[in-house]
């Protein structure tokens, strides 16, 4: 094909069936990442931590590119970077103000390190770019097993701490009063977040982790306040974005990330509009509220 137009470069579905068989692993990886990202993102939103996620993903990028340079395991490098960053933010930034400044300090440092390592790296440039913007075909079987194992750990841990963590995230003072170990839970959560970010970096790339680990819950919280529904929608949105992104990106010569981020963003826009409509049409049963106040005061 000589010089395909821009549209064909973005969307190309020739030989789609054969391609689909090739990315079998990636699709499983994408679906799993969607589930874990959707679950974690509800807590990222509850704890107001999108900025922290971005910082962790950049340290994860530094770790991965460092490993690439040293010829070590890239996955291990990205894990090390993200967990270190998550723990530093968790330990030093218990107050929101401290946290933001630590994140602001950590983020450029991580990105700078990553740029340094990649500049020194003499290997294939596709490897470099993939860490920042994601790759699909690159998910091989060992990587997939690693991904599945990590996801299982994160999901199981979340199931155990879900309720106290939600309590501590929405109402730390009262949770502490009820005996919830707020500080310890915060550290555990940061480790789980680090694991999830390291996984996402492998698939969607360091720069776009937020589209999997923040946007889904942000969108869900626009349309419902029911914790169960927020979680369910968030998982659906995240899985839809990642799997949908992979399917669309398949035949094209473009990295997967723009597809994922665009789907994720569109879901958010739709939810925002739906939420605004609901808000206007009266989520609040205003008339009955005055009456119940009178009943209570009696």
């Amino acid at each position, binding site marked *: 094909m000589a010089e395909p137009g821009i549209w064909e470069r973005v969307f190309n579905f020739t030989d789609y069936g054969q391609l689909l068989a090739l990315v079998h692993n990636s699709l499983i990886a994408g679906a799993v990442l969607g589930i874990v990202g959707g679950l974690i993102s509800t807590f990222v939103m509850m704890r107001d931590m999108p900025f922290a996620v971005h910082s962790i993903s950049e340290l994860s990028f530094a770790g991965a590119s460092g490993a690439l340079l040293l010829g070590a395991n890239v996955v291990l490098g990205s894990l090390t970077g993200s967990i270190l960053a998550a723990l530093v933010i968790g330990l030093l930034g218990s107050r929101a103000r401290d946290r933001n400044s630590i994140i602001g300090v950590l983020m450029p440092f991580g990105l700078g390190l990553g740029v340094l390592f990649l500049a020194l790296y003499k290997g294939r440039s596709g490897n470099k770019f993939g860490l920042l913007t994601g790759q699909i075909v690159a998910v091989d079987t060992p990587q997939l097993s690693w991904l599945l194992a990590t996801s299982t750990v994160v999901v199981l841990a979340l199931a155990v701490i*879900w*309720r106290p963590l939600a309590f501590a995230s929405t109402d730390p003072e009262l949770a502490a009063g009820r005996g919830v170990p707020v500080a310890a839970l915060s550290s555990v959560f940061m480790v789980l977040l680090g694991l999830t970010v390291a996984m996402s970096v492998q698939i969607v790339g360091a720069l776009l982790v937020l589209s999997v680990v923040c946007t889904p819950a942000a969108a869900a919280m626009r349309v419902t306040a029911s914790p169960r529904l927020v979680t369910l929608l968030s998982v659906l949105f995240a899985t839809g974005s990642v799997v949908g992104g992979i399917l669309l990106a398949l035949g094209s010569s473009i990295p997967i990330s723009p597809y994922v981020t665009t789907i994720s963003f569109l879901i958010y826009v739709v939810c925002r509009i739906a939420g605004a409509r609901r808000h206007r049409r009266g989520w609040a049963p205003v008339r009955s509220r005055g009456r*119940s106040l009178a009943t209570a005061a009696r």
Partner: protein
Amino acid sequence: MDEREPRRRRVGTRLTAPVLELEDAALSFGRRELWSGLSLRVEPGEFVAVLGANGSGKTSLVRAILGLQRLSTGTLRVAGQPPRRGAKDIGYVPQQRRFDQQTPLRARDLVGQGLDGHRWGLGRHAGRSARIAAALESVGAGEFADMPIGLLSGGEQQRVRIAQALVADPRLLLCDEPLLSLDLRSQRTITTLVDRRRREKDTAVVFVTHEINPVLPYVDRVLYLAGGKFRTGTVDDVLTSGTLSDLYGVPIEVLQVNGRIVVAGIPEADESNHHEDDVAVGAKHG
């Protein structure tokens, strides 16, 4: 005053143990002593107001009762047990703080956290939603059970807070400034609800506040903390010019105006809260 007497006698004949007991308790941070020699027994169904200026150690007392702060000396018992984190016997209403609009919780979920928010795992008890619904009904919040908590008014949020504190059937209701930044009507709703609860279920109430007037009709006893010292007794015993002058070490005037208590002359550093409130109240009453 009269209607309270029978209830107390009833409690007395049952020979119930005190719900909260402090003996010769002291709390200090480094060399700064907040209070010492504090002894207090709160019986079931009793309504005790904890008064005092900012920094007098009211919130630290709350934290000590919750088991989040160790006493320097002395003993503290809640329902006969030493304080520990997460005691089921305490229903806690923390200082009024508005929830963010986007908080992904409905009123019923907030109450649910009071029931099992501290428990690990995903399992739920049978009858959970019925208990939550009953708690919301009891504070007249049944109608906004499914509303996002962040969209409720301050007074409504605080009513849900009371339901949250009461859903696990505590023996002690511990309220830390629950009336802050509420309008007079909501203040009255909250105090009425708290009073009704302790009458119906014999729940003891420890109510931390810097302003006595909203709880004046219900209070059995007052614990007044100031300048490292304290006084306990009925409102008439403690809120007098003599007692407060003695506590603060400067002349203080306590006036009764239209059934309200006005305190004048509290030293500068401590005055901000009282002053602010008196002005606000004065404006509303004209």
